[in-house]
Each structure stands twice: as structure tokens, then as C-alpha cells.
């Protein structure tokens, strides 16, 4: 099956069809998607502000990251579920929309960066790396997540 074929299959799925037929399902799912966005934002910012030397700067970064992790993963899952439902209802539009591909690329990079490089820098503690690296890592993380947010909002403009 080609990629376009897969997207067409998604568009024709029963779930996508149900959401398209309903006048309130799409808005409701999207609103829950927005709640997830807020929580991801909070979980990411608590850690990134700390890495930037702002926010809870008296606390060890590793501990903060451990505290925020369940909320980050939980809201990511919520985003993934609600986002997939939204996608099923308008898969063809997404296939031809550059914003969708921009968002998916940013999302892939953001998740990859958060759970590999950023995690490594945080767990290594303040002593092993130059503090400048913490700030660079925080800025890259904010930049990548912002890309996801911009892409998401942009899908709505068409």
C-alpha cells in the first residue's frame, strides 16, 4: 500500500467517518487535544526553565525531570490518541498539507531529542557538562516543541 493509499484508508475508516458526520465530536476532541498541549507545555517548561537557570533553580534538574516525566508521557499519550482521532477525520487534507509534515517532523525530532540527548545531559548532572550546554539543550528543546505547536496550529489554517 502506498502512503497515499494508507491515508485514504484512514480517511475512509469508520472512526474518521463518525467524527466527520458529528458536529460536536471534532471540536470536543480538539479541545481535549488543547488540554494535552497545555500539560505538555507545563511539563516541558518546568525542566527547560530549570536548565536555563530560571524557574526552580534550587532543585536538582534530574529530580525535576523525574517528577515531570509521568505528566510529559501521560499528556503525550493523550495528544497521540486525540491527535490520531482528529487525523482519521481529515487524513487526505493532512497528506496534502505541508503543515502536517512539518509538525510530524518536529514531533519526531522533539521526542527523539527529549528522550536521548536532553535526558543524557540532565542525568549527567551539573558537573560533567559545561553549564552552557544545559542552556543550549533547553533552547533546542523549546524550539523543537514550539515547532510542533506552530505546525499544529497551522494545520487548522487552510
Amino acid at each position: 500500500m502506498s502512503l497515499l493509499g494508507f491515508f485514504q484508508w484512514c480517511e475512509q475508516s469508520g472512526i474518521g467517518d463518525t467524527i466527520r458526520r458529528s458536529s460536536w465530536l471534532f471540536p470536543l476532541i480538539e479541545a481535549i487535544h488543547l488540554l494535552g498541549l497545555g500539560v505538555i507545555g507545563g511539563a516541558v517548561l518546568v525542566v527547560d526553565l530549570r536548565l536555563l537557570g530560571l524557574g526552580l533553580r534550587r532543585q536538582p534538574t534530574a529530580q525535576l525531570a523525574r517528577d515531570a516525566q509521568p505528566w510529559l508521557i501521560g499528556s503525550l499519550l493523550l495528544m497521540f490518541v486525540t491527535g490520531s482521532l482528529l487525523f482519521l477525520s481529515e487524513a487526505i487534507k493532512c497528506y496534502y498539507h505541508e503543515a502536517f509534515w512539518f509538525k510530524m517532523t518536529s514531533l519526531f525530532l522533539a521526542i527523539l531529542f527529549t528522550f536521548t540527548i536532553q535526558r543524557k545531559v540532565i542525568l549527567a548532572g551539573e558537573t560533567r557538562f559545561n553549564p552552557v550546554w544545559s542552556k543550549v539543550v533547553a533552547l533546542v528543546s523549546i524550539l523543537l516543541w514550539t515547532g510542533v505547536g506552530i505546525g499544529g496550529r497551522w494545520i487548522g489554517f487552510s
Partner: protein
Amino acid sequence: MQLRLLATLCCLVLAFCYLATVRAAAPTGWTAGHQTRLFSNVAFQTAAGRGIGGSLLSFFSRLGDSTWSVGLHESRYAYDLIESVHVWTLCLFFGLAVMFDFRLLGWTMRSVPVSEVARRLLPWTVAGFVVMVISGTLLFTAIPLRSYQNIFFRTKMIMLLLAGLNVWIFHSGVYRRVATWDAASVPPRAARVAGALSLVLWVCIVLSGRMIAYNWFDCDHQPQRPIINFLTSCVPTQSEVR
């Protein structure tokens, strides 16, 4: 730090105001979203002249005819940009407010003193709230009359007042004694209740805020149930009722 942040935000707002002067080229090919914005120019049959509702109604009606309002809803980019900023700021405002609520509930950062979370994170929440209020006011100014008579907008405003009341009760009540429970991994009941209330209210505010965009209960969508027309202060004409 906070001052510099506020200055940057003010610059951003000014940039948006400039963009508000860029008008849409032509009304052809407008999407449904653009068309709903024009509803502010439609004179709804309403409960005009009845007490405060009437005076607010005429005020928002005049606001809708102002250069600012027309500029905002006719502009090519301003409305979409301001709306995007309003949504993105959820991360800063809603995200960090919710993290504080989670701390009050003992769900995260249990080893961090509550007063430290408040002191170090709430200024960011306040900065986010300032952006929310400025962008939200601009969005309202773009379509004042329709927003004022929108049931979700009214719900949102009432819940905003309740959320503000909750903040006030928390800070003048149990938070005054924070020194006695600062390090508690699970704060006392009163603080947990404040956190839970805040969480529920802000979630409902986000949900109803998103629904303002939909015109299911708008005045020009008749017939509606009498309770809906009462809550939105719409007075449908005889032909609309049938």
C-alpha cells in the same frame, strides 16, 4: 527578568497591532471562519434596553463598529496570529498553573517546598496570564457582539471569575500558613481542594474557550430552546421562531 519579559511581550503586541492594519484583499474565497467574524456587523434582535444587559449590548454593538474592531476582523493576518498566540500561551499559562495545582494535590514535585514552586513558577504563570488577557481582549474586540451573546463565552467568563475567587481564597486562607505545611509532600485538605478546584475550572475554561468558535447556539441560529435564548439574551423575531 520579569520586566524584560513584559517589555518583549509589549513589543509583540505592538507588532500585532501593526499587522491589524493589513486588510484582507477581497472577500472572495473566504473560509467559514472568516465569515463568522463578520457576524459582529449583523444587528441581532436582542433584549436591548433591559437593565445592564441592554447597556452592555449597545456598548458592544458600538465597539463592533469601531475602527479597531473592523480592522481586527477584516485584517488578513492579525486575527489568526492573535488567536494562535492565545492558544500557544496555554503552554506557559495553563501548563505551569496546572503543574502548581498538581503540586498542591501532591501529584508531582513532592520534595519541592510549595512556597518555592509558588515563588519561582507563578511569576511565569502571571506573565502567561497577561498575554492571555491581552490577546483575549483583542479577540473579543474583533467580534464583540457575537462573543457577548455566545453561551460558551458567558460560561467562560463566569468560570474565570470563579477561578479568580479560588486564587483569592487560597492566597488569603491556607497559603498564609504555608510555613507550617511547606515541605509536606501532600499539602493539607484546604490546599488540595484549592488545587482541585483550580484544575477543574481551568480545564472547563479551556474547553468552553475552544467552543466559542462554534455558532450552534448563536442568536441567528433559530429556533433555539427558550432557555438558550434566555442565557444568550437573544430575542428571536416571530418568523424565526416558526
